[in-house]
């Protein structure tokens, strides 16, 4: 994985010193809250429902053991012994003290991490496929391109004050595991007709109050023009994005209002101009970055068999492992969704254990998934049973990947000042309901996502079943959506009808699941059945 050079480290260290001074000036009264707020947000520090919240960037979700251990230690020293992994592959701490925030940033800088650009109207953390570099189906490792974009976008003077926040996802396979088309810019590394690599650009996707699927605006950009084309996309947005109305300021609105064709025409015009300016980083820089992402020294002689004698282990293998490009390895997913637990939360001890397991069994690599789980990308099949035993012992061995218990949930009204309703208790009740009934297993793949407000941090638009919490005259109410997907068959869920109470929404999810179980054919997933039979049978069952 990428390691900081002297420039990266110097930039991050300088930012820590600068923010320490800014915090002290705020505490001393030399800065008002209005003056300080944009400064703290640029360092990932929010003021949330109960305290300050710090969001730490995890570039494309990749961590080494030392970094994961540091995250655990920060949870112990500066927070309340836990952290929350987010749908942007980051981690958030909920109980931060302003006077200690610079110390946390200093601790992060020591392990090549920071919280820069995790808030504000700038280019946020670049997300990617959590199986990058391990997946059998990728045409290339997307992380070097994500890293190049990270370096390009860090402190970019032209794009530090965009009309609104801006999110990238970079993948390199036909299977989309990163909700690529639901980002401001989604980049898919693809092969051209002659076998050369290039980038397909999807621009103007997003969730939030106006969900949109990004249209393809160019199917092949040569990789030695990647940054130039990206810059052209951003320039057109920066020039014409709606700064007068924050609800219409995302690039998706611009692309929609201009039309993809006209937006593309303007991008191409800007691109042609930028090609004359020589802004593309030297090829040597990309090659330098690539050198950090070479394959680890896989053991070609490791056994290619998994002893499935233990039935619980066999279930976990089936649910929570993913094929690896090396036949005798797999990628193993650690579920942060125990039955009745808080999706995405991990204790300091669990983080340190995951760090240890990553070091011992996965070439010192871990990944955060946008579904709020953790991946050990390169695990020898021969080590799986031992790994599983250690996970189970720590409460991390739940075999529920992509099942109804593997719920994405935003922090909701329990923590977030923007939320209208609580998300976590709903997730807990659904998880417990389906675990108790045993239906989770019968349902197979069913992706359920819950947001506590229209900002959609819980990706409810993209859930096979989505739940949106709203405020109905001061009382929590929950809308049910069906038919969303954030995979390569991206679609947006549709609202079933009137909303439900907290307990009512749990019943409604079970009702929808029962319709699926009754109607499914030939191994269909919930989503397939919904797409075949449409909304009506579900509405009939829900509302009669």
């Amino acid at each position, binding site marked *: 994985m990428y390691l900081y050079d002297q420039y990266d480290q110097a930039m991050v260290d300088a930012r820590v010193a600068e923010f320490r001074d800014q915090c002290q000036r*705020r*505490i001393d*009264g030399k800065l008002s*809250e209005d003056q300080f707020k944009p400064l703290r947000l640029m360092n990932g520090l929010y*003021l949330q*429902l*109960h*305290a*300050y919240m710090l969001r730490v960037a995890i570039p494309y979700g990749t961590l080494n053991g030392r970094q994961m251990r540091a995250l655990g230690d920060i949870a112990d020293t500066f927070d*309340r012994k836990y952290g929350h992994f987010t749908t942007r592959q980051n981690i958030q701490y909920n*109980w*931060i*003290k*302003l*006077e200690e925030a610079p110390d946390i940033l200093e601790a992060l800088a020591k392990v090549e991490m920071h919280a820069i650009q995790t808030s504000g109207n700038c280019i946020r953390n670049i997300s990617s496929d959590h199986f990058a570099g391990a997946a059998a189906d990728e045409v290339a490792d997307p992380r070097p391109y994500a890293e190049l974009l990270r370096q390009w976008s860090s402190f970019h003077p032209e794009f530090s004050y965009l009309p609104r926040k801006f999110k990238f996802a970079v993948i390199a396979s036909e299977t989309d595991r990163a909700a690529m088309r639901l980002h401001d810019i989604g980049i898919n590394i693809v092969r051209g007709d002659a076998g050369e690599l290039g980038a397909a650009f999807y621009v103007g996707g997003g969730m939030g109050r106006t969900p949109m699927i990004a249209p393809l605006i160019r199917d092949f950009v040569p990789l030695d023009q990647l940054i130039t084309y990206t810059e052209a996309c951003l320039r057109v947005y920066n020039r014409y994005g709606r700064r007068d109305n924050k609800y219409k300021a995302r690039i998706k609105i611009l692309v929609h209002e201009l039309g993809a064709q006209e937006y593309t025409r303007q991008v191409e015009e800007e691109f042609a101009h930028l090609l004359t300016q020589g802004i593309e980083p030297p090829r040597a820089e990309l090659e330098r970055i690539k050198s950090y992402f070479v394959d680890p020294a896989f053991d070609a002689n490791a056994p290619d068999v998994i002893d499935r004698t233990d039935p619980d282990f066999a279930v976990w293998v089936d649910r929570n492992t993913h094929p690896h490009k090396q036949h005798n390895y797999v990628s193993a997913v650690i579920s942060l969704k125990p039955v009745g637990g*808080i999706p995405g939360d991990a204790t300091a001890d669990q983080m340190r254990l995951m760090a240890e397991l990553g070091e011992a069994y996965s070439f010192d690599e871990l990944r955060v998934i946008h579904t709020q789980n953790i991946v050990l990308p390169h695990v020898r099949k021969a080590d799986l049973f031992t790994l599983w035993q250690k996970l189970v012992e720590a409460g991390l061995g739940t075999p529920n990947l992509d099942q109804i218990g593997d719920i994405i949930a935003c922090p909701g*009204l*329990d*923590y977030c*000042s923007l*939320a209208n309703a*609580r998300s*976590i*208790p709903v997730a*807990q009740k659904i998880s417990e309901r389906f675990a108790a009934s045993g239906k989770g297993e019968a349902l197979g793949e069913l992706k359920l996502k819950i947001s506590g407000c229209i900002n959609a941090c819980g990706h409810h638009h993209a859930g096979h079943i989505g739940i949106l919490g709203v405020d109905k005259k*001061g*009382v*929590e109410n929950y809308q049910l959506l069906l038919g969303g997907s954030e995979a390569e068959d991206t679609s947006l869920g549709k609202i079933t009808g009137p909303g439900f109470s907290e307990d009512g929404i749990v019943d409604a999810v079970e009702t929808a699941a029962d319709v699926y179980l009754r109607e499914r054919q030939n191994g269909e997933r919930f989503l397939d059945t919904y797409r075949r039979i449409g909304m009506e049978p579900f509405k009939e069952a829900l509302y009669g």
Partner: protein
Amino acid sequence: MKILTGNDLKSGAVTWWTGVDWSLHVEEAVDVGDQAGSIAAREESARRVNAPYAIDAERDERGVRPAHIKDRIRALGPTVRPDLTLKPADPKAGSWVI
């Protein structure tokens, strides 16, 4: 009644105006009537509170209860982590929020 709330500048903790100081406990909040703006301005400029604002509340047999669920959660703590609330030993504390 109108009560005044904000966050402690250094710790970020939720605080409530008691008439003379800021408290972690909403039951100590007092009715500020139409004085919310002047109290908030004075206290914020003295850095005794951060981002103060007034909310509606009512007084019942259990004390002061904010009108909106968001402020009740702010007053108690996350409903999903009773151990992290101000009343970790009170199993009924969560019902006060809902």
